[in-house]
């Protein structure tokens, strides 16, 4: 545990002044304003927690801070001086390093190389000095108590070890600002404790830390300050000592005051789907639940809790190793999405661009894709039938588009989502699974999607809604299943359904004292 990486003295920062300051940062993507005039200050020797729901803009901020994205407006100041990060290397040169949420590592390279790629130690003739790289990698790994051989190819490591490599990579730069984007998501209890030690040491060295986490216990354990984002805006900041968990939850999910969910008459009908003993070797196990006609069943959990994986198994994308699906009491084996659609189960995936919409095809062709059997005659297309079917469902969803032969790629996120939902409604399904149905779409489209879900349920469709947004889960669901680490952590209904119970079960925190 010897500190061998020498720490630079940051004399240019005055005592009490922030080392890094973001002012009025704005970043817009087609169809969505990811950051809307946000500000953030990081102080040397202090941990600032960045808190917000999924889609609040945290990841966009991290990417802006590390030079992956360039902001549309606002300024970044390092030690009081304005800076512009055109590339990731510029940000690194300014002493900003990050442990990204997604592993931005290279499977074919060794542990040592992954730590040092882009700034490998050089020896004679400017050649990479492998000996120095290995020994420095060993030092850094020892510093975070990671028992990894620097020469192991990364592909041979598990997720937790890869994460340690990502941490080591961030520490290989002598950084004044360390960004940690959900660093504990994949770590075990012991590893998390070690990470806390590391954070304490980085603090002691005078580095500023931006710590992004969904877990309130750890935020209170290590953070000195907090900043809360909601829907791409800055809603609050201050000292941790001045707030309670409840305050933070309120700030984070406070949208329920300005978001109205449709009134719903809750009268679920017969059982339509029953899942018994679903298991997968690595993704989930012991999944049991039932779903009734006219019901909206919410699936809540942290990102990576295994919710989407269960849904994709149900839809025939992946194969469960154990378990039975019954539809209307009949055991139904679903080995492919094609079979799932025949059985009346459809899936609106979270990743719209990759899995949901065929963005290079026109709207009407997207809508009719799984229903071509109905719009065609003897296998030959009938365009008028296709347009009629597409128009029927897109009208119902209040789609905003110039024409039905417009490519889906030209629509906003919310309207793309409507096309995907229309596509599935056209197949007249019995069970519709919506995976993060309003992620990254504007408020107006969100309301439309919510209203429509209520309408579908009222018509007797059984709806499963996977969502990480607490207001949405509370506002829409009749019943909620909370998943954690691939297992069902709780099934909540009625009075038991509160923001606190959801957060506690999802994060695995015990009941309040």
């Amino acid at each position: 545990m010897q500190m061998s990486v020498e720490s630079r003295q940051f004399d240019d920062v005055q005592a009490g002044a922030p080392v890094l300051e973001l002012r009025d940062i704005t970043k817009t993507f087609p169809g969505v304003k990811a950051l809307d005039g946000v500000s953030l200050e990081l102080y040397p020797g202090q941990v600032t927690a960045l808190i917000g729901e999924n889609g609040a803009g945290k990841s966009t901020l991290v990417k802006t801070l590390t030079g992956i994205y360039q902001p549309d407006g606002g300024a970044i100041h390092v030690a009081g001086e304005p800076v512009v990060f055109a590339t990731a290397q510029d940000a690194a040169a300014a002493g900003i390093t990050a442990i990204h949420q997604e592993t931005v590592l290279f499977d074919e390279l060794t542990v040592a190389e992954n730590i040092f790629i882009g700034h490998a130690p050089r020896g004679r003739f400017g050649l990479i000095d492998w000996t120095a790289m290995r020994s420095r990698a060993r030092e850094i790994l020892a510093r975070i108590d990671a028992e990894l051989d620097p020469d192991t190819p990364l592909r041979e490591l598990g997720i937790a070890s890869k994460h340690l490599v990502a941490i080591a990579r961030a520490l290989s730069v002598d950084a004044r600002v360390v960004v940690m984007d959900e660093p504990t998501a994949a770590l075990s209890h012991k590893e998390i404790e070690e990470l806390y030690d590391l954070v304490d040491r980085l603090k002691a060295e005078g580095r500023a830390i931006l710590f992004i986490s969904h877990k309130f216990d750890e935020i209170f354990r290590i953070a000195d300050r907090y900043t809360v984002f909601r829907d791409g805006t800055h809603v609050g900041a201050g000292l941790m000592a001045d707030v309670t968990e409840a305050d933070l939850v309120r700030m984070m999910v406070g949208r329920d005051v300005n978001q109205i969910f449709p009134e719903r008459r809750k009268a679920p009908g017969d059982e339509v789907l029953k899942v018994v003993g679903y298991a997968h070797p690595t993704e989930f196990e012991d999944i049991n639940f039932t779903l009734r006609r006219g019901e909206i069943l919410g699936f809540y959990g942290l990102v990576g809790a295994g919710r989407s994986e269960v849904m994709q198994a149900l839809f025939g994308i992946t194969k469960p190793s154990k378990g039975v699906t019954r539809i209307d009491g009949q055991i139904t084996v679903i080995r492919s999405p094609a079979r799932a659609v025949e059985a009346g189960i459809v899936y609106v995936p979270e990743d719209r661009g990759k899995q949901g919409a065929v963005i290079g095809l026109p709207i009407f062709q997207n809508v009719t894709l799984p229903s071509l059997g109905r719009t065609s005659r003897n296998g030959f297309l009938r365009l008028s039938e296709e347009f009629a079917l597409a128009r029927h469902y897109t009208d119902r969803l209040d789609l905003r588009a110039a024409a039905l032969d417009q490519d889906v790629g030209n629509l906003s996120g919310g309207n793309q989502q409507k096309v995907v939902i229309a596509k599935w409604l056209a197949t007249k399904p019995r069970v519709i699974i919506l995976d993060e149905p309003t992620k990254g779409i504007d408020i107006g489209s969100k309301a439309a999607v919510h209203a429509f879900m209520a309408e579908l349920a009222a018509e007797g469709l059984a709806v499963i809604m996977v969502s990480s947004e607490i207001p949405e889960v509370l506002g829409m669901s009749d019943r909620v299943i909370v998943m954690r680490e691939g297992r069902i952590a709780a099934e909540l209904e009625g009075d038991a359904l509160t923001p606190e119970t959801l957060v506690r079960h999802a994060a695995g925190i015990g009941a309040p004292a």
Partner: protein
Amino acid sequence: MSDTSVTPRSIPDRLQSPAARLLASWELLLLVVAVAIFIANSLASPYFLNAWNLSDATFNFTEKAMIAFAMALLIISGEIDLSVASIIALASTAMGAAASVGFGTPTLVLIGLATGLACGAFNGVLVTRMGLPSIVVTIGTMSLFRGISFIVLGDGAYRDYPSDFSYFGQGYVFWVISFEFVLFAALAVAYYVLLHRTNFGRTVYAIGNNVTAAQFSGIRVERVKFILFLLTGLMSGVAAICLTSRLGSTRPSIGTGWELEVVTMVVLGGVSILGGAGSIPGVVIAAFVMGLVTFGLGLLNVPGIVMSIFIGLMLIGVIALPRVWKAWRA
């Protein structure tokens, strides 16, 4: 955001009329190029505007175009088959071997088609069942199929085809209209209908655009791709029959390098090498363009190898120019 309260209203089917779309299409641009080459050729050589010469010129592209139709579908679906010319060699060798032991024309045709189908099925199994990248698989089978021809024939040749076998590559249906040209036209129509007028064609586009979303929409992706490899193999078999009949002999080097000409024809026709876009009319016009360039320059005594510069420049130019234009405007 405030407009969500507006009552639903119908979205028009089309923003532009089909005619307006055609005006801005790649196919029209290509057609203009084809006509320009035609006119330039007529002016440059007095021998160009001669029915028999023009008829002869069609042989420059008909056989390749037959393969190009199936290849277009395959490339639109996001795969590629570089073994087509080798399938020609193998199918031709199989027919030659059968002919040498006295089989008649109908049997030879069947053998040619069956060999093509078998080769296509072999590629298809490796790509769709084993999940291997098609470019590597078909570089491998490209060597394998032609390699088998070399093993069978060495530096020899099959020549003893029955006399009525020559009809496919040398026969004329009516006046200057050759059997090959009629077959080419019929296949063009058939592939046009298949790609643009059937459910199957629609799924090909969906797969090429976004294979995951297509799978997530309940399309049986692997089955569609397997059928496309079968079709490409089959068309190579058809081309083998025509080419063998036209040449009247089989050597293992038959059709060498055609795979790249076929791919060039497909890409020149506006099919995206990344999949998801392209049309049969585009490929048909590209076939004429390539045929006319070859023939016209041939009349001017420009050797074939120099024409390939034009083809290569066109291939890169047609993709590069729109991108340069876009970058320059931005």
